[in-house]
Structures are given as structure tokens and as C-alpha cells.
């Protein structure tokens, strides 16, 4: 079978597998058994289908196969409680469970994955495993972690779920807002982590951003009236819409100011805008951080060109964002917007009091360069080479340093002209990173 077809098949099997897993986790009472059974069934499908042909009802085939494997595992384990084996009724039939059952099971699994008693990293890892169906190796590639570390974290997380008795249940209405916030946090973190890995060494054929979007779509589909998942999905889609324009042919990052807006995905922008509008209509006066970030992204999407951006509105939105979620990333992005609205001086003042990291130094370098303070800009940008800097970012910053150094280097007499054009005086501030702020 040709390679792309095999990859397509693997995708189908993986996505179908996550549907089956949610129900198996409930009926077996064990996430581990469910995962093992689905994985084995997927392996058999990928082994047999290319030879025997894809069955008429792939979903039913996978369901029955995974169910049989689960029963075998439970029998082998023997010592498991009898009631769990009872629920794995052999006569359960060949039909996949009805969609409504799958939906509830997936919601249960979602809330288990996003239970606040688990750490954020554990939540994200488990969600990618059981809701997206990624293997530990694929998760490691998405999270820029080691496969062994991911496997260990998964084991520890499953152990905590079963030992501490984290329930497999849809939260009651009263607890839903708090639990939904945790779900949104996991969605957003999945995307942010995958997004920051873009441009890094390609370790896998899995596209982490696409998986995170798929996860957000699933959550939105499961809870179509909830404004939180709507806003997170909108934010992701706005960020995704710029994807083609975000990197140059050499893989170097292209700044928001320099992006070819003709390459922005208008269909995604339209979808994101509609989601954001619906989300905002469903919440009253108070906007949550995801809605605000999506609204900022929408402002950028609206502007036909960078200079057309309504910076006053962007700054206003950042002001609200900083007041509800005063993170360093939000404050840094606000400083960039302030510089665009009111000049480099105002931008530099807005940097005061923000905990400096490599992005902070990079923004400071650009603002100093805009003021013509090139030596200081070089020093600041050098400081921006330390820390968790991605390779393309590092290259970009080195280029800036080199350009500014050329501009300040002593000019040989016979050249005759000392006033060379100074690079970096146009708007070229790096995005402070994270979806919605690029």
C-alpha cells in the first residue's frame, strides 16, 4: 500500500480508537486496560486492513476487536474484581455503542484528564494520549520531551487516577464552571506547547497544533453551548490562520509586521470570528482571557496591512487582559502594542517592572534600535540569546545583532559615506510568543 494511504489509514484508526477508548475505560474501569486494548486493536487493523481491505464498518470492527482484547487482558489479570468483569459482558454485541453513549463517555474521560487534582503537564500529556490517541513517542515530539519521560508521566498519572479515586464522571452543574476552566487551560496549553515547538527540529510526523485544534473541536462539539471552549478554539484558529505566512521558505520566523496577509487563511479567520462572536454573546460584561486574546487576534486579522492595525483598540484589549490575567507574556505583548501606538519611548516604559526573560530582552533590543541606540540594542539582543530560545528565533536575533553591528562599525575613509541606512528602524518587533499574540 502506498505510503500516504497508509498514513491516512493510521489517522482513521487513531481517531476511531479514541472513541472506543472512552467507552472501554468506563466498562473496564481501567484506563490502562482500555489503552492497551485499543492500541492492540489499532495495530491489528494496520496489519490486516492493507491486505484484507478495510472492513465495511471499520468502527464496528475496531470496537469488537478492542472489546475482545480487553476481555482477554482482564482474564489474564484474573485478580481483578468480579464486577468489573461482569460489566465486560461477552454478549455485548458487535455494534459500536450509540453516539450519545460515546459522547457521554468522551466527556467523562475529558473531565478525568482535566481533573484539577492532576498537574497541568500530566493533564496535557494524558489528553494527548487518550483523547488524541497519540503514542508516547508522538507526545514526546509534540511536548519536546523524551519518550521515556512521557511514558513515566503517563504511568504516574494513571496510577494517581486509580489510587486517589479521581472519578470518571461529568461534573454536576455547580462545579462545571471551575472544571470547564481547567479544560480550557488544558486545551490552551496543548496548543501553546505545540506552537512553541514549531520551527524546532522535526521529530515526528505528528502535527501538535493540528492535534490541539482537533482536541478543541472535540470539546466544543461535546459542549456546543459553552463559551469557554468556543473562545479557546477561536483563539487557536486565529493563530492557525496565519500559519502559512509565519515562516519563510528557509524556516525562519516571519514577524507579524512582515507577513504576507494574502497567505492568511480567510476561511479559518471567518470561522474563528464567528466562534468569538458567539462566545462573547454568551458571556455578559466579563470577558475571560481567552476571549480577550482571541479579540486581539481578531483585530490583527481585520487589518488589511500591519500599519492599518487599530493599535488603540489592541492596547485597550491588552489593558483589560492584563487586569484579568496579569501574566508576563500578556504584559510584554501589551508593551509591544503600546510601542506601536505611542512610540518606542512609551514601549520601553511599558517594559518596566516585567520580569525579564529572553523575549523581554528581544523586544527591548528592537525598541532601542528604533530609537537609534544601536549599541544598547545589540547588548539587549545578546541577552535575548540565553534561555529557552528556539533555533529559528536565535538565528533571527543573531541576524539583527549582525545588522546593527554593521551599521555602527567604523566606516573606511574611502567609502565616503558614514550614514548608512540603519536596519531595524521599521516596525519589526518580535512577537512575544504564544497563540493570539503573534
Amino acid at each position, binding site marked *: 500500500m502506498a505510503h500516504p494511504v497508509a498514513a491516512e489509514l493510521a489517522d482513521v484508526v487513531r481517531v476511531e480508537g479514541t472513541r472506543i477508548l472512552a467507552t472501554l475505560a468506563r466498562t473496564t474501569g481501567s484506563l490502562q486496560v482500555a489503552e492497551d486494548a485499543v492500541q492492540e486493536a489499532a495495530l491489528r487493523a494496520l496489519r490486516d486492513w492493507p491486505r484484507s481491505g478495510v472492513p465495511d464498518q471499520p468502527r464496528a470492527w475496531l470496537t469488537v476487536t478492542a472489546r475482545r482484547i480487553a476481555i482477554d487482558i482482564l482474564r489474564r489479570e484474573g485478580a481483578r474484581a468480579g464486577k468489573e468483569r461482569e460489566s465486560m459482558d461477552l454478549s455485548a454485541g458487535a455494534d459500536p455503542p450509540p453516539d450519545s453513549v460515546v459522547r457521554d463517555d468522551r466527556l467523562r474521560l475529558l473531565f478525568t484528564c482535566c*481533573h484539577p*487534582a492532576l498537574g497541568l503537564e500530566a493533564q496535557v500529556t494524558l489528553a494527548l494520549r487518550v483523547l488524541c490517541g497519540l503514542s508516547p513517542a508522538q507526545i514526546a515530539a509534540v511536548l519536546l520531551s523524551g519518550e521515556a519521560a512521557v511514558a513515566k508521566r503517563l504511568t504516574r498519572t494513571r496510577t494517581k487516577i486509580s*489510587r*486517589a*479515586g*479521581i*472519578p470518571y*464522571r461529568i461534573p454536576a452543574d455547580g*462545579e462545571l464552571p471551575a472544571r470547564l476552566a481547567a479544560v480550557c487551560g488544558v486545551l490552551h496549553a496543548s496548543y501553546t506547547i505545540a506552537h512553541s515547538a514549531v520551527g524546532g527540529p522535526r521529530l515526528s510526523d505528528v502535527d501538535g497544533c493540528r492535534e490541539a485544534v482537533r482536541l478543541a473541536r472535540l470539546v466544543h462539539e461535546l459542549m456546543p453551548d459553552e463559551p469557554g471552549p468556543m473562545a479557546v478554539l477561536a483563539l487557536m484558529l486565529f493563530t492557525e490562520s496565519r500559519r502559512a505566512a509565519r515562516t519563510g521558505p528557509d524556516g525562519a520566523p516571519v514577524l507579524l509586521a512582515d507577513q504576507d496577509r494574502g497567505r492568511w487563511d480567510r476561511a479559518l479567520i471567518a470561522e474563528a470570528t464567528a466562534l468569538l462572536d458567539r462566545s462573547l454573546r454568551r458571556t455578559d460584561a466579563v470577558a475571560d482571557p481567552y476571549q480577550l486574546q482571541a479579540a486581539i487576534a481578531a483585530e490583527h486579522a481585520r487589518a488589511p496591512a500591519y500599519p492599518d492595525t487599530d493599535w488603540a483598540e489592541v492596547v485597550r484589549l491588552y489593558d483589560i487582559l492584563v487586569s484579568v490575567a496579569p501574566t508576563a507574556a500578556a504584559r510584554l505583548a501589551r508593551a509591544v502594542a503600546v510601542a506601536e501606538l505611542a512610540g518606542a519611548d512609551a514601549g520601553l516604559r511599558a517594559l518596566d517592572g516585567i520580569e525579564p526573560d529572553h523575549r523581554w530582552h528581544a523586544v527591548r533590543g528592537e525598541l532601542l534600535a528604533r530609537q537609534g541606540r544601536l549599541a544598547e540594542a545589540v547588548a539587549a539582543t545578546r541577552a535575548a540569546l540565553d534561555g529557552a530560545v528556539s533555533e529559528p528565533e536565535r538565528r533571527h536575533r543573531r541576524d539583527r545583532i549582525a545588522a546593527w553591528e554593521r551599521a555602527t562599525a567604523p566606516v573606511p575613509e574611502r567609502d565616503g559615506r558614514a550614514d548608512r541606512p540603519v536596519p531595524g528602524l521599521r516596525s519589526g518587533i518580535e512577537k512575544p510568543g504564544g497563540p493570539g499574540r503573534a
Partner: protein
Amino acid sequence: MTQYAALTYTADVDWSAPEQAAEMAEYRRFGEENAAAIRGGAALYPTPTATTVRVRGGRGGEVVTGDGPYAETKEALTGFYLLEAADLDEAVRLAAQLPAAWNGAVEVRPVIGR
């Protein structure tokens, strides 16, 4: 049903002192309201009364006793409950009613069943 230990970490106070009476009344109230779920527990005297015991060199080795608890922290282990709950959510709901939850923290740990 699972049993959970709810360990209260709070200021290192003397629960037996008269000035703790109001707080102790709160704990008694918790006890009365949740009697069905409580399998045991106690308030502890403050950490200056604690003795840390170690045996050097394995079983039968030299017994080394020390003054006070293992680590100096702002919040000390000042009491514990043994609770029975259907799942972690229920255990957390119970623990959240303990005054230690707002005056310090409550650590909820599953107990290994016999």
C-alpha cells in the same frame, strides 16, 4: 468506597489552649456534620512536643532521637482525619469544610486498603 487521610497543615498552634476554643468548636462542628464519613482522627500537640525518631544502620541499629519535626516550615502537621468517600471529589468536598483548608492546607491522601 476509599479511605482517605486528610492531614491538616496549619499554624503550629496548641489546640488544647483556651484561645483555640473557637477554632476547635469549628472542628467539632465538622465532626458532627460529617460523622458518617469520619473513621478516625485526632488533633496534635504543637511541634515543639514532637520527637523525630530514626534508626541508624537498619533494623536494630542505633536509635537517634531528635527534637521537633523533620522540617521547619511555616505550616506544620497539626492533625489528621481518616475519611471514607466514594471518590476523590467527595473527599475533597469533605476536606474543604475543615477550617485548616482556609487557615492553611489539607493534604488528602488515599489510604492503602487492608
